[in-house]
């Protein structure tokens, strides 16, 4: 049976009816067309679908939409304010930390929560922080550098 949930998504309050087994990832992409959040492994192993739930990084493919009543979700689309990009987004562009781009949004969402807790991380801390996000192109070097650059701003 569908369940009615009210939640805040990127600052806007939304009410929607969800199937009992639907994931947050499914409703983000299908119902709201927020396609910055990517579907990768769909089983919590790759990190492409990372969003913030109440300010914490989570795999949206693993979160049941039915459990989200009165919660707050932020996706990559909610990171910039108007045309002004988040410092992490700017750093990823400047440092060429993007190749095919599929992992980028999840990577930035993970880094965003991490930098909120650690303002001057070293390389090892950064690498540990993004352990739940796979990138199959860049070899991580530029991603790690971009996060470091953003941390220093």
């Amino acid at each position: 049976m569908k369940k009615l949930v009210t939640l805040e998504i990127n600052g806007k309050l939304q009410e929607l009816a969800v199937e009992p087994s639907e994931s947050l990832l499914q409703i983000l992409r299908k119902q709201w067309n927020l396609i910055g959040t990517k579907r990768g492994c769909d089983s919590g192993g790759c990190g492409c679908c990372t969003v913030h739930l109440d300010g914490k990084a989570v795999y949206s493919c693993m979160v049941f939409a039915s459990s989200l009543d009165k919660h707050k979700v932020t996706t990559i689309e909610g990171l910039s304010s108007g045309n002004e990009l988040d410092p992490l987004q700017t750093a990823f562009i400047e440092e060429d930390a993007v190749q095919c781009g599929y992992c980028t949004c999840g990577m930035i969402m993970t880094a965003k929560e991490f930098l909120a807790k650690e303002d001057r991380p070293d390389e090892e801390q950064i690498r540990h922080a993004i352990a739940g996000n796979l990138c199959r192109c860049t070899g991580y070097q530029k991603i790690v550098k971009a996060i470091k650059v953003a941390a220093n701003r």
Partner: protein
Amino acid sequence: MSLTSVKEYFTPGGKQEVLELLEKYGDSALIVAGGSFVHGLDARDLLFGIEALIDIRNLALNEVSSDSAGLSLGATVTFSELQQLNEIQSSAAFGALRDALKCPPVQIRNVATIGGNIAAACPYFDLPTAVMSLGGVVQAQGPAGSREIGLQEFFAGLFQNTLETNEFVSGIFIPALPARSSSAFIKLETNANDLAIVNVAVQLTLDESGSCQEARLVVGGGVAETPVRAIASENLLRGRKMTDELFKQAGAAVQSDLEPISDHRASAAYRSATAKVLTERALRRAVARLDQAQASI
């Protein structure tokens, strides 16, 4: 997620309501919290016939209390919340828990709960090995009240626990350890986001002369259907001084306590060889931790 058989997702606000739902749905109900292992169960075809998911996160089971008897952890306390507890951050005795909590990526730590991780009875998980080495106890809530089940009795086999159909895990209790106690956990995996090939947790209590008074050594991560106590090694450690030579003997003795499985992650022989080395390292880490704690007094 496929989960095609699931018809309802419940978010009850009280224990009574959970028990009523369990009564009504029986074997076709699954208790969930963070939901991070539902895919894992689905992939292994263990969700066959599940019609109702019962999310217990509105039951106020996310509380922690600590006294001289030990640490009481509500079932829905997340890994991230556990990492922030003073007791877990600083004490040598809870070192194994601290080590094990570092393993999963942040996206899992933010949702996965201690109760769910134990209740899943997955032999590849890290926390069960660590909690078993610390003598942890499951608090099970049923219609007749609450009962306590030691972890060894709780794990019945591969993805099987000894809960009755009308019971659910409401908390985990970890007893306080005597002075001069220390613990450590070590895991070998193929990549940062994978389940364990082998994991080892050890808890030691030394007497004033530095001899081992009590030892609990647990090996998990696919060496058997459940994490197992390495009794031969424990017996070897008791009464002895902590030396590198003894750690090597204890590592070798662990191999006689195990009958590891072979699967796509590792062969039985590789698991056995790894268990030996990880045991030595875990013992060294636990002793180093104790030395450090005593140096800072």
